[in-house]
């Protein structure tokens, strides 16, 4: 009897040593120039595989969709281009991946910020607009045009990475890369995940979303900006005017795909008619903070409570 008990103990110890016991793991990786937080429930050995997989996916997306990338023909690029084009049409051009020349003109790439003249803006606007892109065995850009995948590629990376973790058998967790997230299963308290949304002007959060099997993304005027002569200039440009889009401080979108949440949060931030866009995405909901700090909700409603 005693021998059997010892044998059982040894087997248990072996299982634990091999990392089969499931527990919560958290890790932070540096990707897309931002911190990517992963929290998953699995064995230690699965977690090692998960981290490698997330790193591999983010590295691939980062290199394919970096500002310097000249890849306009690979299937992944073409696929994301069509997803972006769809949102471009649905948002009447408010979401546009061709804003890169504007981002450069205002100094957001070099971090040498400057307010350009109207002539400079008008000249750069000639190189902005997805309708100017030609398609022929890939994407053909006009001279001077440049793509900025920043408002959609991170969402794609999170979708691919979370799908991959679910495929290896991880049934609960989240991936949060800066403003974009996907969460699935239940949290450690066996509830839906409680996702705080950062306050655009003060420390802390302004509210909490409780979701699962959903993505969420936030676009805010506080993420990258500079102040000149007392005026705040942020990095979310209206591709039609060439100026930072006015009227809002932050937009959060929640829905089935993080990629769409990512693109829609930018589209709604820029648009003067956000409801018109949301009507085309019935599975998605938005929380908008206007320039006065007032909250409004649009589209599908997800459980939300204001922070204390």
């Amino acid at each position, binding site marked *: 009897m005693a021998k059997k008990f010892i044998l059982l103990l040894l087997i248990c110890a072996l299982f634990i040593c091999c990392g089969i016991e499931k527990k919560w793991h958290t890790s932070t990786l540096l990707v897309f120039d931002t*911190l990517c*937080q992963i*929290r998953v429930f699995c064995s230690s050995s699965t977690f090692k595989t998960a981290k490698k997989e997330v790193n591999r996916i983010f590295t691939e997306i980062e290199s394919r969709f970096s500002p310097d990338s000249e890849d306009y023909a690979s299937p992944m690029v073409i696929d994301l281009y069509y997803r972006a084009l769809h949102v471009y049409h649905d948002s009447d051009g408010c979401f546009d991946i061709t804003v890169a020349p504007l981002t450069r003109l205002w100094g957001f790439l070099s*971090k*040498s*910020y400057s307010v350009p003249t109207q002539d400079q803006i008008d000249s750069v606007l000639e190189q902005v607009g997805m309708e100017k892109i030609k398609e022929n065995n890939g994407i053909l850009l006009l001279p001077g045009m440049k793509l900025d995948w920043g408002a959609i590629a991170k969402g794609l990376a999170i979708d691919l990475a979370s799908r991959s973790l679910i495929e290896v058998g991880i049934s609960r967790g*989240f991936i*949060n890369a*800066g*403003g*974009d*997230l996907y*969460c699935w299963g239940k*949290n*450690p*308290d066996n509830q839906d*995940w*409680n*996702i*705080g*949304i*950062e*306050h*655009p002007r003060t*420390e*802390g*959060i302004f509210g*909490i979303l409780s979701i699962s099997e959903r993505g*969420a*993304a*936030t676009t*805010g005027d*506080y993420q*990258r*900006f*500079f*102040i*000149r002569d*007392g005026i*705040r200039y942020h990095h979310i440009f209206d591709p039609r005017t060439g100026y930072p889009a006015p009227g809002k401080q*932050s937009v*959060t979108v929640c829905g089935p795909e993080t990629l769409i949440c990512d693109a829609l949060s930018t589209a709604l931030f820029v648009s003067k008619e956000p409801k018109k866009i949301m009507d085309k995405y019935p599975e998605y909901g938005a929380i908008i903070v206007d320039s006065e700090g007032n909250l409004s909700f649009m589209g599908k409603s997800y459980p939300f409570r204001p922070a204390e």
Partner: protein
Amino acid sequence: MDRRDFFKTMLATPLLTPLILSSKKTTHDLELYLIAENPQLFLSTLLEKIQEYSSTGGRKFAFLNSHPNEKSIKKSLLQKGWRFVQEPVSTNLVLSFSHLHHKALPSFTLVREGRIWDIRSQKLFLLWREMNENHELSSCLTMVSFKNRPSNHLAGEFVSVYKEGRKLATLPLKENVKRSFKTQTGNITAHIRNGSAWVAESSCRHKICLHSPPVSLAGERIICAPNHFFLEIGRSSSIDTVIG
């Protein structure tokens, strides 16, 4: 000026080295160490330029301790549209004063995320060179800390006080209190007011902890290395993560 000379001049003051090393442990976006007899002559220009290069928001400032040039600094910053606030907790730009043991060449050093920011290719370098060449030696060190915009940080609920890795106390941030703790070099006093905590008095040598701006967000710390002592903000939260 070659790279070696540039860094050598900035690091010439022995007091700056521990300060710069300590800034690696803090969560401040940017720190400015200005050695000048009359810091008010340079501060407003410096702050304007820094705002151009860095997304340090807000135009409010406060003093953490008394500064011999406080009046003139206030006057020069107010003229440039900055707003003075009494409470260091309600601003992300905090000025403090320290007296250097030896006089040094006037200069300024910028430390961004724990690393010296090489400004030789920026407009700021002209100002740096002018200061370095044309002004009298000074022992007046003005430190300016730009507190980082919180990312993934939540407002704290309590501050835990540790010495030698052992928790000495947990104090709620809601209460306004001052508590002293015995340390290797004497005493250290933690001050809590309006949801923020900071070190109000310390018997340590360089007083780095004393010049650390108040902390209020979960995870933020103030460290006093000589005393093996630190404060850490915590919260008992039901939030799993934060986006934004």
